[in-house]
């Protein structure tokens, strides 16, 4: 057998760091000490957005809170009812993590209550991470393969990415061409 060439060592060395990319998926920050009160003006580019969005533990906790806080009462299991659907790519108040957290903590007109004193800020971020995953925005290796309740939809980890329509800007006001 030929001794491994220097090139194969080099290739392995170059490929190994790719494995490390899988390591941040389930960092459990359970202590969840809140940072300084920033939610009043959830700033664009809040570092917590990245921290929570693709983290399996936070998405799973968000899913649990979605059931516990009866989000389904209005949003159904993401399909919408009295409240708007969360599974499509349309966002009235913005679809970024920061926008969703602001919607949860401070409420929105026509029915969305504010959850400021009902849940903690960390829980709002976890919920937002789960809400983002409903429309297929999260990494496929971060979303859960099972749900907390009897599911009528395929597991998120198996969903196609067709619905992955990211609407970065809010919907145009009525009257304007879309």
């Amino acid at each position, binding site marked *: 057998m030929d001794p491994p060439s220097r090139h194969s060592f080099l290739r392995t060395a170059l490929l190994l760091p790719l494995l490390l990319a899988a390591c941040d998926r389930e960092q*459990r920050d*359970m*202590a*969840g*000490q*809140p940072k300084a009160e920033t939610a009043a003006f959830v700033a664009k580019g809040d570092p917590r957005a990245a921290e929570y969005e693709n983290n399996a533990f936070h998405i799973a*906790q968000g899913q*649990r809170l979605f059931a*516990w*806080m009866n989000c389904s009462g209005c949003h159904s299991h993401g399909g919408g009812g009295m409240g708007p659907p969360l599974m499509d790519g349309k966002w009235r108040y913005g679809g970024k993590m920061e926008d969703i957290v602001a919607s949860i903590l401070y409420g929105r007109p026509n029915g969305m209550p504010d959850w400021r*004193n*009902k*849940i*903690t800020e*960390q*829980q709002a971020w976890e919920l937002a991470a789960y809400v983002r995953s409903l429309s297929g925005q999260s990494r496929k290796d971060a979303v859960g393969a099972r749900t*907390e309740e*009897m599911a009528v939809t395929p597991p998120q980890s198996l969903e196609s990415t067709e619905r992955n329509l990211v609407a970065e800007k809010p919907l145009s006001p009525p009257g304007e061409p879309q």
Partner: protein
Amino acid sequence: MRRRLFSWTAVSSAKAPSPRRGEGWGEGARPPRKISGAEHPHPTLSLQGEGFQAATKKTRCRLISRSRTMRLRPSVPLPLALALAGCGGIQTIGGREGRDAALINDLFTLFCIVTGIFFAAIMAFLFAAYWRRRGWRADRMPEEDVALEAPSRERFLKVGLFLWTGAVIGGLMGLAIASFFTDRGLAHPNGDNKPVVSIELTGNQWWWDAKYHFHDPSRDFRTANELHIPLGAATYILLKANDVIHSFWVPNLAGKQDLIPGHTNDIVLVPTKPGHYRGQCAEYCGLQHAHMALDIVVDTPADYQRWVARQQQTAQAPADPQAKAGYVYFMNKQCSACHTVAGTPAGGQVAPDLTHVASRATIAAGTLPNTPGSLHAWVADPQGVKPGNNMPYIGLNADELHAVVAYLETLK
């Protein structure tokens, strides 16, 4: 054992070489006799050799000293005693405080005795065979005597074989019959009597949610992590799970029963001795599985009725200013979103019912004793006490913390 034999061979092979050494000195139970078996029909003669005497002397000393240390070595009896010390108290598999536990314990004892007798008998035969094989009886006996003895030995062996087979069949049948009756006993733990108490117990990560059901639904109440059941009556417990599989296990009272999401199981407890027992989740259910304990208090019927009457009452309004401040915080902040305090606006259903939390023995499913200090620690930083549990860090300031704990202390 092996070391002892080895040292013996080493010493004697140096001092007393023998033609029969190759035939298994090392494993001989009484080596001095074996060594010169061929040359000396009478084993005592073999001790005449000078070199050999020196060897056996040394060996004998060594054997004696070894056996003495064996007798005194604490490594054998000490762990045994410690293990036995664990059998007792509020959570033990040796407990007999419930009808099920007593039945299973009786069966276990019977199994231990029967299998123990057979084990001892087999060991005795094994060593007897070993002894004879290595013994000097056959060596000493003249050939004709051996031939004369053969028919009587044959008969003896035949009878022995029949007796032994009969004993094995009888023993196994006895155990099977005992198992059958124990099983029947477990299936009907209270004869035909209907259970008098009905509890719906739901396993959550990582606590127990208990709902007591009554014929009149307005008397139903909810509690957590502590069950009271009446002495001598059958308590029916319906078992459910909200997230993953848990297992209900109060070893002093009965065996295990799993709690499975989307499925209902049940178990009937018939306690026979009043007292405070400890249950434990017996199916690995996540990070804090070990901190998912359950207090079970077996009350006399009168005590039980008093406890039920107490639990059915709603929480009393706090009187002192600090507890009042705690009440205001509790109702207006995160606490009330998950916890219920009956008779107040707090009606969350996803966390333990706190209506009578101060009357319980422990908090956080047996993690801490229910003292003001534990409550402060828990409310201030639940993730520090029980990492991973679903109560978030709230971030109360010192005044709020003292107020909330003062309020919780009033919930007797």
